[in-house]
């Protein structure tokens, strides 16, 4: 496993948000975590990138234990996080946002090549490179958030509801991008309420319900699961 959560629990104050969650992300695969509002998806993702302390359990990345590390240290290991709500830097230009994603890198030539790569992948970002990020549409901001995460040259990309609030055509576009990114060898952890999209993209899926792991299995199997069909796919 490239990234492995063993039995982790997270509390907010005294309130338990997730309990005994174990998740494995094999190299080169797309793993999805689905679940309804408040199930604990964002909490799980934030624990992976060091933004929340664990109440219990361990997190391993590439064999090294990473729980307890500060978020900026975890990025250095190769875990990039596209946060819920995009969280781009509103007053910085598109290009500044992207270059900030490469903050820790020293390989100048490769940074320029990767920037070019992001611009090729998202032509609209190139057109708007000198524009303040705040002035862009929701879909463009999501692409910027993904591009910014890619600029850290990560090995695994954590994505928190990239489809949220976007028109169906844009969601389709983002889905294609996630597949392309993955085909280049990047592992992806995709958190989604849009279970149809998530199960279509992922190799393996976990279902969170009120902080507990309810189900897990290959995405195709979960797609045919009675409970998943009724509760998440509306079938």
């Amino acid at each position, binding site marked *: 496993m490239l990234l492995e959560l063993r039995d982790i629990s997270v509390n907010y104050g005294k309130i338990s948000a997730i309990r005994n969650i174990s998740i494995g992300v094999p190299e080169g695969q797309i793993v999805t975590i689905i679940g309804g509002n408040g199930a604990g998806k964002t909490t799980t993702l934030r624990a992976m990138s060091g933004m929340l302390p664990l109440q219990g359990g361990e997190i391993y990345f590439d064999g090294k234990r990473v729980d307890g590390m500060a*978020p*900026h240290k975890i*990025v*250095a290991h190769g875990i990039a996080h596209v*946060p819920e709500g995009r969280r781009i*830097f*509103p007053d*910085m230009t598109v290009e*500044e946002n992207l270059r900030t994603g490469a903050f*820790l890198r020293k390989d100048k030539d490769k940074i320029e090549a990767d920037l070019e790569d992001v611009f090729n992948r998202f032509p609209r970002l190139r057109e708007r490179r000198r524009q303040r990020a705040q002035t862009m549409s929701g879909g463009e901001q999501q692409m910027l958030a993904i591009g910014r995460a890619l600029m850290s040259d990560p090995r695994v990309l954590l994505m928190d509801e990239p489809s949220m609030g976007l028109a169906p055509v844009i969601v389709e576009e983002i889905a294609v991008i996630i597949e392309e990114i993955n085909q280049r060898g990047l592992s992806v952890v995709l958190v989604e309420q849009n279970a149809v999209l998530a199960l279509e993209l992922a190799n393996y899926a976990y279902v969170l319900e009120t902080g507990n792991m309810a189900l897990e299995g290959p995405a195709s199997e979960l797609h045919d699961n009675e409970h998943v069909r009724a509760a998440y796919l509306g079938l």
Partner: protein
Amino acid sequence: MFELLAQTSLNAIYAASYISLVAVGLVLIFGVMGVINFAHGELFMAGSYVVVALYADRMVPFFVAVAAGLIFVGLLGLLMERALFRPLRDNPLGGLVASIGFLMVLQALAVLGFGVRMEHIPPVTQDVIRFADKISIPVARVYVIVTAFVMLSALWYFLKRTRFGWALRASAQDPEAAALQGISVTQTAMIAMFIGAGFAGMAGALTAPLISINPHMGHSVIITAFIVIIVGGVGSLEGAVLASVVYAFVHTFVTTFFDGVLADITGLALMLIVLIVKPTGLFGSADRA
């Protein structure tokens, strides 16, 4: 009449230059730390006393003393970050209260070290640049203007063109998202505190030979700085500089043509009008640095 207008404008440019240094530091600290630093006026005061101690009492060359003021007060900023703001990171109100406590400590230390009397220190230079019969500017003031201009330009370059400058702006706009890019928010907080405090200290050091120095001089400095950053739009560095210019011109002209008390009242009135008409400040939107 032209002479008087030109002369008053020169005086206003001088005032604008050191007010900008103070206000920009305050905005930078607010942007990155999320804390309103009430001790900012006392950091200015501390800078003045560094010049008293080194230049006036120990004959250290003036610009060396000014550099020492920048560094010493910058270090005071680091101390505040480590001892007060870091433990109170998620508590902006606590940070504000702690900064008021620090203000009192600095005042008390100034009284202990130098007494309550006013200090007047020997002029750096008596030279005056004379443009016309009634239009002139003391070279000591030119030093302040030029240094402020250089330092503000350097800050602008740092924030817009360097990797750590971007990191600083990113942390000001969204600290959590900044951490996710590998930026250490503790490190950017330290940089912001050093620059923000250091600029206030430098303003105090530069103007020390031109003003009267006492342990309570910080009051009027912080009031001016608050007016300026509210007029400029609390999060905006450019706004702080532009508002410093506006404020300095209004204040200097009212002082010259009417009197100083009326100038202070006008300054406050200017702030109230801005708050009523455009609460985000003349130059700011709702954004931060």
